């Protein structure tokens, strides 16, 4: 039972990270109608930025904050230089163009940081584990991730629902042409939205950096998970992305932790050990396929566009 609670927390933690990625992806998708395969590259860049800045400044927190700023800048620059030219095209052009960007960023990172991965050491006080409920110890840093991403999610919610910029973003999501016609600088709005998405992705990468090795291609698999999240949640819906991210995070983590043992009850040890991980990796895609078959617009369809 205690193990179960721990795994649930891990699931929530993965879910929160996925949400950071998915929020940017779903905003860009919902507002600019852009399929961005290079979103995972921004996640990777965030992780590299964090590792580099933390090494320079000697402070983990400063490193992450600088990485956030750098990702924002990188995202906005990318939008102005390249992404902007893809708006209004069909999705295949998006796939071709952003696939090119993905290749470019992987290579750029190899050029700048070299082919070997990096690691981002945690400050000692974050290495400890705390007792969250009697008997359950949980690493401080994972709690930090959950709380930090939760704070960002709240901030995002407030920004989107309560500020003028957020109002424009929501308006842009439901009717782009009308927002432009009302005199809003839609180009600037798009640049800001893309930058915001990039910053969220970069932040996710920076937060994840101490847990994983920072390496080339680290954004590729998690990008697909983020796509699964926004499709399950309903494209363009931040609330949907949040709920779906938690669901996907929990299913993935709990499946990985318990499925092999559960299979063990009906299968031989060997079969359970090989089938378990494969089945748990598949489970979220099965969930997504099932949801698309029964609710083709996702769980929380954004207002019909």
């Amino acid at each position, binding site marked *: 039972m205690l193990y179960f609670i721990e795994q649930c927390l891990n699931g929530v933690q993965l879910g929160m990270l996925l949400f950071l990625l998915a929020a940017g992806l779903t905003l860009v998708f919902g507002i600019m109608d852009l399929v961005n395969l290079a979103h995972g590259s921004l996640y990777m860049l965030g992780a590299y930025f964090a590792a580099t800045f933390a090494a320079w400044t000697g402070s983990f927190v400063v490193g992450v904050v600088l990485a956030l700023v750098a990702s924002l800048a990188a995202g906005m620059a990318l939008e102005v230089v390249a992404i902007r030219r893809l708006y209004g095209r069909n*999705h295949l052009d998006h796939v071709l163009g952003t696939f090119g*960007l993905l290749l*470019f960023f992987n290579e750029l990172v190899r050029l700048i940081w070299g082919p070997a991965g990096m690691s981002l050491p945690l400050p000692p006080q974050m290495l400890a584990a705390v007792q969250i409920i009697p008997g359950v110890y949980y690493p401080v840093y994972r709690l930090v991730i959950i709380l930090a991403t939760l704070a960002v999610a709240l901030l995002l919610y407030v920004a989107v629902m309560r500020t003028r910029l957020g109002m424009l973003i929501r308006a842009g999501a439901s009717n782009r042409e009308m927002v432009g016609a009302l005199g809003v600088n839609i180009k600037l709005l798009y640049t800001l939205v893309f930058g915001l998405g990039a910053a969220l992705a970069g932040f996710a990468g920076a937060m994840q950096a101490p847990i994983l090795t920072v390496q080339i291609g680290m954004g590729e698999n998690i990008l697909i998970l983020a796509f699964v999240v926004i499709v399950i949640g309903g494209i363009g819906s931040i609330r949907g992305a949040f709920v779906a991210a938690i669901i996907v995070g929990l299913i993935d983590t709990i499946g990985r932790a318990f499925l092999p043992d559960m299979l063990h009850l009906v299968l031989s040890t060997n079969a359970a050990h090989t089938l378990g991980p494969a089945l748990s990796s*598949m489970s979220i895609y099965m969930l997504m*396929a099932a949801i*698309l078959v029964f609710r083709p617009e996702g769980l929380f369809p954004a207002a019909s566009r």
Partner: protein
Amino acid sequence: MTAPLDTSLDSALKAAPESWLAPRTVVTGMLLTVLALVPAYAGLTGRIFVMIFFTRVLIQALGAVSLNLIMGYGGMVSFGHAAYLGIGGYAVGILAKEGIASGFVQWPVAIAVSALFALGVGALSLRTRGVYFIMITLAFAQMIYYVTIGLDRYGGDDGLTIYRRSQFGGLIDLENKMLFYYLCFALLIAAVYLVARLINSRFGLAIRGARSNDRRMLAIGYPTFRYKLVCFVIAGALCGLAGALLANHTNFISPALMHWTRSGDLIVMVVLGGLGSLFGPVIGAATFLLLEEGLSRLTEYPDLILGPVLLLVAVYVNGGIEGLLEGRRRG
């Protein structure tokens, strides 16, 4: 989603009989001539690696041709097409490992299993459209990807070496690299011919009609779902064949074959060459792989150039290389 794709259909329907000297005809002819002469060149100069490289081009082109059938003509953007390469490859690999080396068994099984998988995927995916279709096909490909990772007996993550190429009982020896090359070439040409026959048949017109306006096709009495599903299955079977060839070519298969970026490669080849044109995918596959190979010889960081090239094609070129040859441009 569908609207901007329509230009190719319009031009295809309107197309006046093309002059034999039209740039696209010339380029296609040149490419086919080069492809036909590669083994001779390799044999004369002893550069066997050229032939091996072009064998890969032919096989990937076959995969791209099959993707183009559903994507270019049917408007069904499958982001999981590499799954069929993998299924075809694993069918050959698994049968070989279990001691069934006969190609008369391996290849039909590869095609049949791919077709069956396509039937399942298509039946579920074709209920959705647009970006959701892209994502659900991706999801199914990811499932197969993880299934093969879980196949411990067949190498799991590390992949599986195939020690003997498919045996055709003395009819054709695939160990002979030149014979294998020409087999791939012949199959590619046959596939392009099949696609040409298909899209110009009543069946093909229904598929293309459904891409332009599904509701109208339904209204005039075509069960478009069934038409699209059959088309999807044919494409899956063709790509399964490509997978069987690929397994024989590399003598090795691994889940990496089905990573989503491989599906991305196939889409890139089709779009690069020219969506919805018969030889576009062949041109696209050759261009993409040649660029990749050439750049990696020139520089240590090939994708630093390849990536922006793809972006530029997406931004400035309408209809890929085929479109460029026809003089279609976009500012």
